[in-house]
C-alpha cells in the first residue's frame, strides 16, 4: 500500500477503449500507473521484456494485467495461457476485460485460470464505476503477491 504506485498493464487494441480505461482510472482512489499495449503480442513482449520493452525503468513490472480477448495477432486467451503457464508470471492477477459475454469465452478464460472476467459495460457511468471499483478492489482490498 505504501511505496510505488502499482503498475496496471492494459492489453487493448481499441484506442477508444484504452482511453476509456485511462480516463476512468484517473480519478481512482488508489494510485496506479497505467501502461497500455496494443495487442497480445505486445503484451507478451512487455512481460518478457522484448522488442523495446527491455528497460525495466520504462517498463515496470505489472501488479495486475487487464486483458482484452479479441486482439490482432495474439489474442487475449493465448496471452492468458502463456502467463499462467509461466512460473515467473503466473501469480500476476489477470483480469479479462472484454465486450464478449459468450459462455464459451467465459468458460475458456476461467479454464485458463483467469483471475476475473469483466464485461465492458456499454455505458459511460458504469464503465467508469467498474474501472474504479476494479482499481479499488484489486489494488486496495485484494492481497496481491509480491
Amino acid at each position, binding site marked *: 500500500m505504501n511505496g510505488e504506485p502499482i503498475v496496471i498493464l492494459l492489453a487493448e487494441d481499441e484506442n477508444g477503449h484504452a482511453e476509456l480505461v485511462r480516463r476512468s482510472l484517473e480519478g481512482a482512489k488508489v*494510485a496506479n500507473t497505467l501502461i497500455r499495449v496494443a495487442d497480445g503480442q505486445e503484451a507478451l513482449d512487455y512481460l518478457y521484456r522484448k522488442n523495446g520493452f527491455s528497460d525495466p525503468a520504462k517498463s515496470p513490472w505489472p501488479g495486475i494485467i487487464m486483458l482484452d480477448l479479441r486482439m490482432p495477432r495474439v489474442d487475449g486467451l493465448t496471452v492468458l495461457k502463456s502467463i499462467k503457464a509461466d512460473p515467473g508470471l503466473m501469480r500476476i492477477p489477470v483480469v479479462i476485460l472484454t465486450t464478449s459475454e*459468450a459462455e464459451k469465452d467465459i468458460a475458456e478464460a476461467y479454464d485458463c485460470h483467469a483471475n476475473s472476467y469483466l464485461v465492458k459495460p*456499454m455505458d459511460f457511468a458504469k464503465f467508469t464505476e467498474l474501472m474504479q471499483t476494479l482499481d479499488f478492489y484489486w489494488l486496495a482490498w485484494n492481497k496481491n503477491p509480491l
Partner: protein
Amino acid sequence: MRSENNKEPLSYTELAASLAAAVEEIAGHSEKQKKLAADLGAAHKENIHLIKEQAAVAAELAASYKELAFQNEEKAKRAAELVIANEELAFQNGEKAKRAAELVIANEELAFQNQEKACRAAELAVANKELAFQNQEKADRAAELEHFLQTAAGDKKIPGAAARSFLDIPRHLAFLVAGLVLAFSCGGYLLYRNTKINVYAGKYAELKAIGELKAGGLSNWWQERLNNAASLSLNLANESLVRPFLENTAPAQTAGDIKAWLENVLKSYDYEDAALVDNRGRVRLFVGIAKPALSQLALAGIKEVQRSQRPGLGGIYDKADNVSIPHLNLYVPLLGRAAPGAGGKCMGVLMFRINPERFLYPYIQSWPAPSRTAETLLLSREGDTALFLNKLRHSSAPPLSLRFPLSRKNSPAIQAVLGHEGAFEGKDYRGVKVLADFRPVPGTPWFIVSKVDSEEILSGLYLSAWLILVFTCLCILLSAGLITLLYNVRQRNAYRNLSVVNAARLRSDALLEDKLKDLLEKNAELERFLYTASHDLKSPVVTVRSFLGYLEKDLAGGNAARAAADIGFIRAAADKMAELLDDLLGISRIGRVITPPALVTLQAVADEALAAVAGKLSERGVRTQVAGGTAALFGDRLRLAEIWQNLVENACKYMGPQKEPRIDIGFEARGAERVFFVRDNGMGIDPRFLVKIFGLFEKLDAKAEGSGIGLAIVQRIVGLYGGRIWAESAGEGQGSVFYFTLPGAVSNEPQQGEKP
C-alpha cells in the same frame, strides 16, 4: 499512498530546546566554578548526567508524541476513508441488490434456456433413435440383399444353396404348388378312372354283344335241331315205312330203306349216330359209328318226347349211351297221320347223337376279336351245381368235368346258372379276376358266360394309365417349374427394384447426411460469424456511448480540448462500425450469384482483380505477373475475381519495407489437383498466425487499414467452390504465398469446355 509534510507540536519541542540550553548554561557556569565546587563535582556530574538523562527522556517523549500525533492523524484519515468506503459499500450493496434482481431475471432466463436445451436434447434423442432405427433398417435391407445375392449365386453353383433357396420359397407359393400337384393328381386320377370306366363300359358292351350273339346262335342252333326234328317227326314216310318196320309188318328191305334214309339225314345234319327206338325202349335200328346202349338219361329223354309228342334235345353228356366223349341226343318222336294232341300215338323215337365238337364247341370257342384271354363258357345247372359244358380255354380239364357249387356267387358262371343276366367283374374258374357277361340261352337249358380277364383290359389301360401318369407328372413339373421361374423372376425384379430403391435411398441418405454435415458446418460458421460480428460490433458501441458521456461532462465543464478528443473517438468508433457493417453485408452476399456461371480464363479473372486494386498497386509501386493465364475456370466471374482481388490487396497491404514489391499469380499441378497461388515478397507471416489470419475481422496489424475481412471473404468464396485455402510463409520478412484450390470451378472445365 501519498505522503505529506509533518508539522511538529511546538510547545514540546521548544521545551526540549530550552531545557537543553539551560543544561548547557549550567554546564558552562559549572566549568568556571570548577575549582570552587570541586567536592561538589561528583555530585554535580551526577546531577548533570541526570539532567541529560531527563533531556533524553524528554526528547524521547517528544518523539513518541510526534509518532502518536502522526498515528492519530492517520487514524482520522483512515476513518474518513472508511466512511467513504462505507458509503461506497452501501452504494455497492444497493447495486448488488439490483444486480441480484437482475440475476434472478437472468436465472429465469437461464432456466428457460436450460429447458430449451432439455427440449433440444430430447429432440436429439428422438432423432438419434430415428437414426438408429434407420440404421437398423439399412442393416436389415443389407442382410436381405446379401442373402438374396448369396441365394442367386447359389442357384447357379451350390446345390445346397439351391435346396435352401427352395426351402426359402414362401408359404403361399408352396401351397400353390401343393394345390397344383393335388389338382393335377386328381385330374389324372379322374382321367384314368374315366378312361377305365369307358374301357370297361366298352368291354362290357363288347362282351354283351358277343354274349347276345352267341346266345342267339346257340338258341337258333337248338331251335333248328328241333325244327328239323319236327319235320322228321311228321314225315309221311313214317306211316308207310317206319310204322310197318316197328310193327314188324314191313317187308325185309324196309329196314334197308330206313337205314338209307337215316344215313341221308345224318349226312345232311352232320349227326354222329341215329337209332330207332321202339315204344318199349329197344333199339331196333342203328346207323352210325357205334350202337348205343341206352342210358337212363336217354331213356328219360325218350319217355319225355313220347309223352309230349314233341322233339327234344337232351343235355350234353359223356360216358353214357356207350359213348365216352361228350355228346348230346336229339329225340324225335315219330308220329303218324294223326296229328299230335289228337289222340295220335307215337310209333317210336328216333334218337340222333350230336357231337358238340362238330359245331357247338367251335362255335362257343370262337371269339370275334383277337384276345389273349377271352372265352365263352357254356353252362347248365345240375342240381346245386353249375356244370361247365364246353372245353375250357385256360384249363386242361375235359368238358363236363368241372362243377361249381351255386354258393360261389362271385363266379359269373354261378350268376349265369342262377338265371341272372348282366355283367360284372368276378372271379372265374381259375380264381382270376374277369370281366364277364352272363345270360341264359333262350329256349335251352343252357347259360353262357362271355368273359375276358380284367388283366387284359387293364393291360390296355396300363398304357393309358402310364400316359396319364406321365402327363400328369409332366404337367406338375412344368407348372411347378413355371411358377418357380415366375417367382424367381418376380423376386429378382423385386430385389432389383429393392436394391435400386435401396441404393437410391442410400444415396439420398448419404446426400442427406452430407447436407446435414454441410448445414452443421454452415451453422457452426454462422455461429462463429455471429459471435465475431456481435463482439466486434459491440466494441465501437462501448466507445461511442462512453465518450458521449465524457463529451457531456467536458462540454458542461467547458473543457473544449477534451470535448474535441471525445468527438474524435466517437467518430472513429462510428466509422469503424460503418465499415464493419459494410463488410458484414458484403460477406453475407457471397453466397449470392452475381453473374451466371461462365467459362473464363485465369488471365481474365486476374486482370479484373488487378484492375480493382490498380490504385493501391501503383501507389506502392508493385509489379505483378500472371502465369498460365490461359487456364480455364468455370464459375461466377466476379466472385472468382474477388478471390484474387482480396489476396492481391492483402499482399499489397502487408508489403512492408520491401523496395521491389512484387506479386505473382499462377497455379501449380499437385497430383490431380490444380493449386492456385498468389505470391508476394512482402513482410511475410509469423507461422503462429497462418491459420488465424483467415478469421473474420482478424488483422495482424492493428494499424493496418480495413476491418480484417478480406481473407475471410476469400475463404468463403473458395469454400463455395469446394476448395481450401492456406498460407505459407518462411517467416517475417520472407514474403508469403496464399495457395487455394477451386475444384468446383475446375472439375467442370472439360464438359463445360465443349459448350460454347
